[in-house]
């Protein structure tokens, strides 16, 4: 009797468990889809015209920008070693 009860409880847990998982994630599918549609309708993301994020460094020599970066890197590195 007790064992039957354990098996039936296990079955119950399995059915409820998979049920809730599917209900939850299915609802999430719909909610997500709905949300995405809504967002892309009312506030479509304006794509920037792929401008180069940072202007390419001048092709030769060590430019000042570079030196700044380096000194920052050095400073950090030193700070860490203390």
């Amino acid at each position, binding site marked *: 009797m007790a*064992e*039957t009860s*354990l*098996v039936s*409880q*296990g*079955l119950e*847990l*399995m059915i*409820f*468990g*998979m049920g*809730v*998982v*599917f*209900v*939850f*994630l*299915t*609802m*999430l*599918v719909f*909610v*997500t*889809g709905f*949300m*995405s549609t809504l*967002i*892309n309708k009312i*506030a*479509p*993301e304006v794509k920037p015209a792929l401008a180069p994020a940072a202007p390419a460094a001048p092709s030769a020599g060590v430019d000042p920008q570079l030196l700044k970066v380096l000194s920052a890197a050095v400073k950090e590195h030193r700070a860490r070693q203390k």
Partner: protein
Amino acid sequence: MQSLINLWNDTGIAHIESGQAIMMLVAFGMLYLAIKKGFEPLLLLPIAVGTLMVNIPGAGMGWSAAEAAIRSGDAAVLAQFRDLLGLAPDASMQAMLDAYHHATAGLYKKALTLGASLGFESGMLYTFYSVTIASGVAPLLIFMGVGAMTDFGPLLANPKTLLLGAAAQFGIFGTVFGAVLLTDAGLMDFTLQQAAAVGIIGGADGPTSIFIASKLAPELLGAIAVAAYSYMALVPLIQPPIMKALTTDAERKIKMVQLREVSKAEKIIFPLAILVLVALLLPSAAPLLGMFCFGNLMKESGVVERLSDTAQNALINTVTIFLGLSVGYKMSSDAFLNGSTLAIIVLGLIAFCVGTAAGVLMAKLMNAVTKDPINPLIGSAGVSAVPMAARVSNKVGLEANPQNFLLMHAMGPNVAGVIGSAVAAGVMISFFG
């Protein structure tokens, strides 16, 4: 002279039990796997060291103040504990320890207080375990950090793949039922709570496993955590045969539609949408999914980068160290060296296999039903084990068609699997709550 005897009695050689020696070998095995084989070293290495420490005979690193008091053997102390635990005056030390370990929450706390008030101290690992795992905090903080590292982009581009993450949870619940059947058949001996805690290994998610095990079956936590992390590391070995057995070559060659780009607004709102659904449908999943979504929101909002950075680095690393050592606390020989561990190892593997198969089969079903083609190989990624399972999908896909990159497609079900097993965990907490 007495102190010389003390000292000898204090050496480990004088006291080591075969169980402890075996557990040390187990620890070395874990270290080998972590260091040489790269098995989830972030967790297995601290767990292994914790295992070593807790099995050092006489060091008492895993003793609570109460256990230290009982093991002190002091007659006056023992008398007080016998009184408290309601044992006969001639009860043995072992009987007292057993009574203490199986005491109700109230009595257990009274025993702790008594031990501390007699001047005994809890060992380091016991303290770490209490603060990090017994309180439930450590797995939640790791979930927060993982959330801050997760990109829901691929999932948002193809939300249907959430269903793959749902299907793969059959690894969890199928195993629970299997364990119950085997117990019914007399082959194993689990309570329903224990079966549930073992089944959660199939979620392929370490912190979730530890969280649930600490609540439903703390006595099995060590074996469950080790099994969970080990099988997660073994995903590249476990999954491919199942994936190939359940799919045809043609299916494995299916090309999927390129994923659309996902806007920042969608990524910000998605974790909030999960939270609202949790609030409405499954409050018992709120801690795990709440912290996960919080971490993800910190990342995607882009306005609290310093918090997100700390959640992903200093904080999660610190918690991982303590969590690992604390799991070691549950790796004492009497907790680990018994039939349950063997059963856990077997059932854990079955859970992974069933979850993988369920994911693949669900993908085949969806492919049959939906318009856009779905390569069934991404179904196996639904077990989570992020990002290993997605990489496995990709690799098996490339074997079938060297031009077919499934990685991004598999990342959707992969993170869906994390949500899915957190939901499964919530169901369990609610079921037994």
